């Protein structure tokens, strides 16, 4: 198991990396701030694995939760509504805020 950089509960921002091709970070979370809910383990990097490499070393894959209102300014729903998804560690950077 690869060593984790982010602990559960940590506030993170999704980086907007110039990765082309097969990557698993949807555009709607880039630049957005969320909180680490857990770590799913470590997995080969799909951005490399899709093109013939083994994708190793494996990267930590985090389950990150966002407030819907932080993703969609016009979100119609409860303030508590949220969205979560799995993001690889190299797409995350520490964030500070509420």
């Amino acid at each position, binding site marked *: 198991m690869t060593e984790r950089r982010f602990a559960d509960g940590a506030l993170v921002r999704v980086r907007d990396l110039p990765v082309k091709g097969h990557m*698993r*970070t*949807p555009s*709607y979370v880039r630049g957005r701030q969320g909180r680490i809910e857990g770590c*799913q*383990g470590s*997995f080969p990097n*799909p951005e490399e694995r899709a093109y013939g490499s083994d994708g190793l070393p494996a990267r930590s*894959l985090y*389950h990150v*939760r966002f407030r*819907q209102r932080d*993703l*969609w300014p016009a*979100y*119609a*729903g*409860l303030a*508590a*509504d*949220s*969205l*979560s*998804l*799995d*993001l*690889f560690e190299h797409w995350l950077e520490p964030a500070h805020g509420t």
Partner: protein
Amino acid sequence: MAHDHDHPHPTRADHRSHAWERREAAIRSLLIEKGLLTADAIRAKIEEWEQKTPALGARIVARAWSDPAFEARLLADANAAAAELGIEARGVKIVALKNTPRLHHLVVCTLCSCYPRALLGLPPAWYKAPAYRSRAVSEPRAVLAEFGTRLPPETEVKVVDSTADCRYLVLPLRPAGTEGWSEDRLAAIVGRDAMIGVALAQATRA
């Protein structure tokens, strides 16, 4: 015979294969030609996947409703819990999401069509459609309403986008009025859509 009648014919686009279809056919024939795969192996794999149905997931849900210790194991490790019931779910990590009266989960894959196929079979066409994939994340409550799903106003909605190496199975809320039901009877009211999160399990189904 003159072709001057006015009944509709399919347009050329209906017949033309897409570039990706031609590419798939070319790769497939190369793999067979090189002896890496056989046509029968491809056929058998398609048959295997098409035989998996949401009944597998429903058995898991029914057991979880009936046995709190199993539910705890399911939430901790869904692949191992499926294996306890003889359901093979190897290869990809599956995570069960427990619905409660206060929290409802809705699963989507915005990037493609990731789906817990080992437990639910192949995804429905709408799950792969751009409309569901884009709207489920940004207006989940409107999507739920269009599926006829009404949640109590205070229930929080959590959308889970299966973006990477995990697949998600919703553990629906057990409906009232099902106390004392057998696991088989419970499994019969657990529909595919309730395990995706676009519907609720209802005691009146089936």
